[in-house]
């Protein structure tokens, strides 16, 4: 049985025109969506093509070569010796230290904002967090330089780098903590309080565990955000050709090495492999945080 919908030709004409428009619009939307993802695809493609030949066991487990070594390797057409171990350990040291500073401060601040939504101080803290988030990272590096390099470690140091990175991590952790806690039903809090549980225990043993995956998402995102930061580290950690675990000494980092390789014509080839590794780490953290965000629902 067929149904006569478009019995009048006027209506039919319009419907074809509208369907064409609809298709055109859909085409534009898909086209623009592809345009949006194309840079990332091209970047990863380029990094893999140009960087993969340097990636090897020694790339991860050896420190950076000096210019002379690189130059001889280049001249004889060999693979540049050495790796970026000093950068990997430096990034690890500084990011872990930054997280150790930013996580407790950020979570406590986030809990404060959640508990005192309407207080004036909370509004100030919230706005300040937003401002820090928008502050150029080199300015934060400058602040860490004045605070730590000039007055605490008396010289460029991993600690100064960690401090500048932790300031960058703070706003994300603060806001994600607040948003996560807001999503927890109020009755859960009341249920615990109705059993005579003291307030601080409700926060530590009910609210934070319940929102744990949300907090973790925020932390991982903030880590992936600062792991590639270069500018503040130039002013604070400076860089080093050796593996360094001492917080009071200059330290290298993966993004710092990219910058150093860029400035040395003999080592330019190492840019690609170093960037590839950095990109891989950042993507990994991003995907992990997405995974946790999903597991929450």
């Amino acid at each position: 049985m067929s149904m006569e919908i478009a019995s009048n030709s006027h209506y039919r004409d319009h419907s074809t025109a509208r369907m064409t428009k609809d298709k055109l619009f859909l085409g534009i939307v898909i086209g623009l969506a592809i345009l949006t993802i194309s840079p990332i695809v091209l970047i990863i493609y380029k990094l893999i093509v140009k960087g993969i030949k340097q990636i090897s066991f020694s790339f991860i487990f050896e420190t950076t070569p000096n210019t002379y070594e690189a130059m001889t390797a280049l001249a004889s057409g060999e693979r540049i010796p050495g790796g970026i171990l000093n950068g990997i350990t430096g990034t690890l040291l500084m990011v872990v230290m930054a997280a150790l500073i930013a996580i407790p401060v950020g979570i406590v601040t986030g809990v404060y904002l959640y508990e005192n939504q309407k207080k004036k101080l909370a509004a100030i803290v919230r706005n300040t967090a937003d401002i820090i988030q928008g502050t150029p990272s080199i300015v934060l590096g400058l602040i860490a330089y004045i605070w730590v390099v000039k007055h605490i470690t008396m010289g460029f140091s991993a600690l100064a780098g960690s401090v500048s990175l932790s300031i960058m991590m703070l706003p994300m952790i603060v806001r994600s903590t607040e948003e996560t806690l807001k999503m927890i039903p109020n009755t859960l809090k009341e249920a615990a309080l109705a059993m005579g549980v003291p307030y601080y225990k409700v926060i530590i043993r009910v609210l934070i565990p319940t929102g744990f995956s949300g907090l973790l998402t925020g932390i991982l995102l903030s880590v992936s955000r600062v792991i590639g930061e270069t500018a503040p580290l130039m002013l604070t950690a400076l860089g080093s050709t050796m593996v360094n675990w001492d917080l009071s000494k200059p330290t290298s980092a993966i993004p710092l090495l990219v910058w150093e390789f860029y400035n040395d014509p003999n080592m330019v080839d190492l840019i690609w492999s170093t960037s590839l590794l950095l990109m891989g780490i950042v993507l990994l953290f991003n995907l992990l945080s997405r995974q946790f965000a999903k597991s929450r629902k």
Partner: protein
Amino acid sequence: MMNENTIQINNPVLSVRNLSVAYDQNVAVKNVSVDFKKNAITAIMGPSGCGKSTLLRAFNRMHELYENIHTTGEIILNGTDIMKLPPIRVRRHMGMVFQRPNPFPTMSIYDNVIAGYKLNGIRLKHSEKDEIVERSLTDVALWDEVKDALFKKGTFLSGGQQQRLCIARALAFNPEVILLDEPTSALDPIATAKIEELLVELKKQYSIIMVTHNMSQAARISDFSLFMYLGEMVEYDKTKVMFTTPKDKRTEAYLTGKFG
């Protein structure tokens, strides 16, 4: 102090004198004085916004969590004025069950039952824990349904089971009074019937005060009924008496469905 529309209760478990609650300037509960009978179910009913939940939540001083809510008056639990005690101690003597089931999502069924002990940092022997869990879950007729899944998350249970778990959690502390805030309004009729049956069973050991906007529920299971309207306690009587011969015109109008 008591007006003509209230009945006298001897040896009340909980007494309230001149209790008023205000949200900022809006008075939600006006000067309520009432005694609650031990080992009985008392239903607090009234139309939406009449202050019945506000009254219930004043008993275990939940309002003190919110800065804009002010409570005045006396609340006497077994002869002690609990308004003078720290709220943390008061709340341990009263179990509360909420409108929507709210088991702790991070805890197993087992841990949910003893959550009151765990969160308060009270250490128990293994055997004591097992005993409390089994007794509380048996009391709410949930033991047979979950005894093989005690270490699964409480949130995997059905809505009705979750609500019974929440009642078990309230019972685990051996409270003198159990406060229920519309405990079945989020449940289906079968789960509701089970909870009602359970409450009738529980009144042998506990004193129960429940808020309901379901008149037939109040008629089915409560021994005493308290009718509130616009923040005032209009009438308080044995349920049978109130439902057959209400003294106040407003009570009669509500019970006959003229508003609600």
